[in-house]
């Protein structure tokens, strides 16, 4: 009996040593991983993530989170979304992962997937709810679904410092999209036919418009000069006249194309602004 008690005491003593050792391998590996990412030592982080020691020491959720975070920091957002989506709702990293996955999908133009991913997720925290609202409104704005954006933007609270500026900015972007004046390619072509380069100026390509004007004018002047001196049937008149007609046609075609280019540039700039303004709040909330 006495021996049994001695054994029990020893076992309890040994167990307490184990409990006292809070410096466990999984934590040390995670600490080291965070250090590598924060110090931008991505090559070393990649090697650590591939090591058997690290994989064995982390739960699947932790591991997927670490992989997602590594890919996010190295700007590979398609892989970022893949790993963050694997993080389970039971994990401490779930909330952060779901938002980063959503953002990564939007950034890689998989907006519908992003909407499907985050819509069913319920948050108890009011800040996270507001953030979800912001992300969804941004997603609908990326899709140019202004009606749905209206629905979500009406729920903006403007009370959280981490989000309020971006909520206002998204509203401004909405106004820019709503007020954007579509230019007519037909009108651009017609204007350039009348005055070379005017169609490009109409499409807000001022420098290009003036350049087209001078090129076509010079070639036209040279053609007229040759016709006056040598007559319309001379070789030099035909040659310069051909050059003039080519430049004139190119100017009209260029003006028509410049309207499309103007529209594309506007959309690109708007998308960039939306993505920027849905990115910053996530960083503010989770960093």
């Amino acid at each position, binding site marked *: 009996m006495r021996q049994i008690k001695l054994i029990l005491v020893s076992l309890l003593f040994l167990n307490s040593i184990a409990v006292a050792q809070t410096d466990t391998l999984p934590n040390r590996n995670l600490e080291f991983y965070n250090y590598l990412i924060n110090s931008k030592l991505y090559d070393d982080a990649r090697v650590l993530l591939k090591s058997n020691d690290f994989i064995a020491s982390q739960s699947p959720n932790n591991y997927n989170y670490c992989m997602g975070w590594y890919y996010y920091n190295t700007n590979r957002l398609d892989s970022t979304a893949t790993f963050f989506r694997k993080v389970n709702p039971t994990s401490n990293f779930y909330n952060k992962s779901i938002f980063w996955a959503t953002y990564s999908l939007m950034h890689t133009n998989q907006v519908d997937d992003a909407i499907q991913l985050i819509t069913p997720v319920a948050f108890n925290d009011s800040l996270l709810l507001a953030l979800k609202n912001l992300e969804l409104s941004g997603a609908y704005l990326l899709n140019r679904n202004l009606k749905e954006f209206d629905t979500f933007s009406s729920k903006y609270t403007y009370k959280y410092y981490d989000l309020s500026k971006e909520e206002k900015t998204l509203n401004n972007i909405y106004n820019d999209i709503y007020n954007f004046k579509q230019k007519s390619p037909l009108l651009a072509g017609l204007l350039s036919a009348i005055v070379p380069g005017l169609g490009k100026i109409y499409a807000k390509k001022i420098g290009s418009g003036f350049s087209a004007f001078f090129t076509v004018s010079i070639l036209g002047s040279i053609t007229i*000069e040759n016709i006056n001196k040598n007559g319309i049937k001379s070789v030099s008149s035909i040659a310069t006249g051909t050059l003039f007609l080519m430049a004139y046609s190119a100017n009209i075609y260029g003006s028509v194309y410049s309207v499309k280019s103007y529209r594309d540039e506007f959309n690109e700039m708007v998308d960039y602004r939306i993505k920027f303004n849905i990115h910053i709040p996530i960083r503010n909330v989770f960093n």
Partner: protein
Amino acid sequence: MITVLSLTFIFPFATYSTSNVFSKKDIADFYADSTFEKADSLFKNGNLEVAAMEYERVIFFNYDFNLSKQALYKKSLCLKELHKYNQAIECLEKIGISPFDSSLTHNSLHELSLLYYLVEDYNNSLLKLSITNDLYGLSKEEKFIKALNLNELYKFDSAKETLIEIAKEEKNDSLSQEIILNINRLYTKKNLSKIKNSKKLFWISFIPGLGIAYAGKPLEGFSNFLINSAALTFGVVAIINGYYISGYFGGGILIEKFYFGGRRRAEYLLQKNNYEIVNNLNKSIINEIPENS
């Protein structure tokens, strides 16, 4: 009852005491020492990426600054073998110059001078060599790197002097004389005159085509001269014959394109020519100086 009381006492005592017997620093240092051995073993076996990561682990986990510096140095060697020269430089620059650890400082300065040469930052390489010279004097290998750097900066006289110094250190007199002869042969005026001066090129290029010819392509320079002349002639003749617009705009645009295009072409050819000559010179020097020197 006594057993229960003693258990109640032992449990928290054990918990409290063990956490104070091994402090966080002790655990970290112990962990770091064992990781260093692991990293060294990986380095010896050629597993360089993992070794580099393990050296970084040593740096992160230990409290001993000297151990960290050693780990940084060894990590830089791994990165150098992996051809990640800029990252290796970053590691070595963190070591700094310490009067208390002269061999590590000397080694890191040596590696830095070589790495800066490899990334074509010749001025920084010479700076590191200059510091090495002040503190420890230059070894043969370091003088060699110095000569290569000086060649890249077109400081051929200084480079030649440095190489002759290396040759004179050779114990075998006849070999030493042979090396000096070869160095003199490489650094003749005839060889070095092939290096073109960019300032001279700037002034010469005012005459169309002459810059290209000076940069080593006489035929191309002559063609450029002819095209420029044709454009000028066209413009002048057109104006004389009353074709003012054709002459001014047509001739003018043609001249502008070919003249300035020719100047840019001449600059590019000069840089390419000089790069090839210095590259060949450095290769010849590497071949001439025996390995065991």
